[in-house]
């Protein structure tokens, strides 16, 4: 079973009818290919990712196609979006000197946010970032920039030296080297990617469980009460997810900004 086939299959399956709960699981994150080119399968998450990129590109292109000094209409919205990222994400970490990274951070934030929020849009209803394969390239881009800026601004040796703050006695320095190397090259990028993926994966799974359970528990019996409870929880999770989608995009971009800041100016 792939994708939302599981949901459809439960169409006639209700409690007390001798039918077990068709529990959602990993199969709800696997999609049948929409079409195949040779051995390459094009699936719904890929389509959604392209759609997300197009939404970001088209929105900002339309907003700033012919910018006016006094913004009107969609340019207002575009400026609001950019200023929100600048004042809430970029400036707190990088200060004014970091304004040259604004286009990158704005694109990153809105690309992730649109991919996340697709979970809540009817018909799309799948967060692209709940497939970890879509998250690693973003982590790779961020980490490449992080390393590149660090080496460029501090030099390769200075960059490695600055990983451990100055003032640490020499023996402790040696003890810390393996910890620091693992943290920097393995666990920091790992947590950056897995945090985004895990939150979106769990959110989608919770929504699927409660929505499916509301339908499954629906029957002219005490099941109706259970169904109502499950439906209330589905709505609650939906509202929670509106917050989580935004929060995860915010955290990813904020951490990117702090990484860039630590590469440009090492901690004192």
């Amino acid at each position, binding site marked *: 079973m792939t994708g939302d086939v599981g949901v459809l299959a439960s169409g006639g399956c209700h409690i007390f009818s001798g039918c077990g709960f068709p529990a959602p699981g990993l199969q709800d994150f696997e999609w049948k290919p929409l079409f195949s080119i040779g051995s390459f399968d094009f699936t719904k998450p890929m389509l959604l990712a392209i759609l997300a990129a197009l939404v970001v590109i088209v929105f900002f292109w339309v907003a700033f196609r012919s910018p006016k000094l006094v913004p009107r209409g969609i340019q207002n919205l575009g400026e609001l979006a950019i200023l929100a990222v600048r*004042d809430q994400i970029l*400036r*707190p970490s990088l*200060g004014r000197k970091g304004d040259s990274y604004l286009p990158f951070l704005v694109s990153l934030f809105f690309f992730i946010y649109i991919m996340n929020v697709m979970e809540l849009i009817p018909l799309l209803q799948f967060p692209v970032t709940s497939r970890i394969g879509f998250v690693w390239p973003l982590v790779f881009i961020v980490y490449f920039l992080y390393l590149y800026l660090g080496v460029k601004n501090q030099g390769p040796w200075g960059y490695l030296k600055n990983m451990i703050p100055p003032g640490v006695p020499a023996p402790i320095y040696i003890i*810390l080297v393996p*910890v620091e190397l693992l*943290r920097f090259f393995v*666990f920091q990028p790992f947590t*950056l990617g897995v945090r985004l993926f895990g939150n979106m994966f769990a959110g989608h799974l919770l929504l699927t469980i409660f929505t499916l359970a509301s339908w499954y528990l629906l029957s002219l019996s005490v099941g109706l009460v259970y169904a109502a409870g499950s439906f209330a929880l589905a709505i609650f999770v939906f509202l929670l997810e509106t917050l989580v989608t935004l929060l995860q995009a915010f955290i990813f971009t904020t*951490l990117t900004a702090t990484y860039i800041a630590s590469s440009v100016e090492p901690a004192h």
Partner: protein
Amino acid sequence: MSSGNDASTQAQKRAAAEGRAQGLDIGWTVFSYLLAGMAAYGAIGWLIGRAVHVSLLFPIGMLVGLAISLGFIIYRYGRVGAVTRPSSRGNAKGDDR
């Protein structure tokens, strides 16, 4: 509301945003340190344990790594004023939008 109040509200908002970014950064760095310490010294312990046929060195290595991480986290972030920020940040006056 006078413009003076506006300026102080702006400054407060800016300080809150800076605190939020710093908190997120430190929180996740600390988490990464804990994992990295256990993994690094767990691996060293496991390798030595394999060489000398003492399997107990693997968990001992992990505990030692955890202790090192905790010690470093306390040294680095545990003291008041231990975290310094580059001086150029946060000194922006007013709003230039």
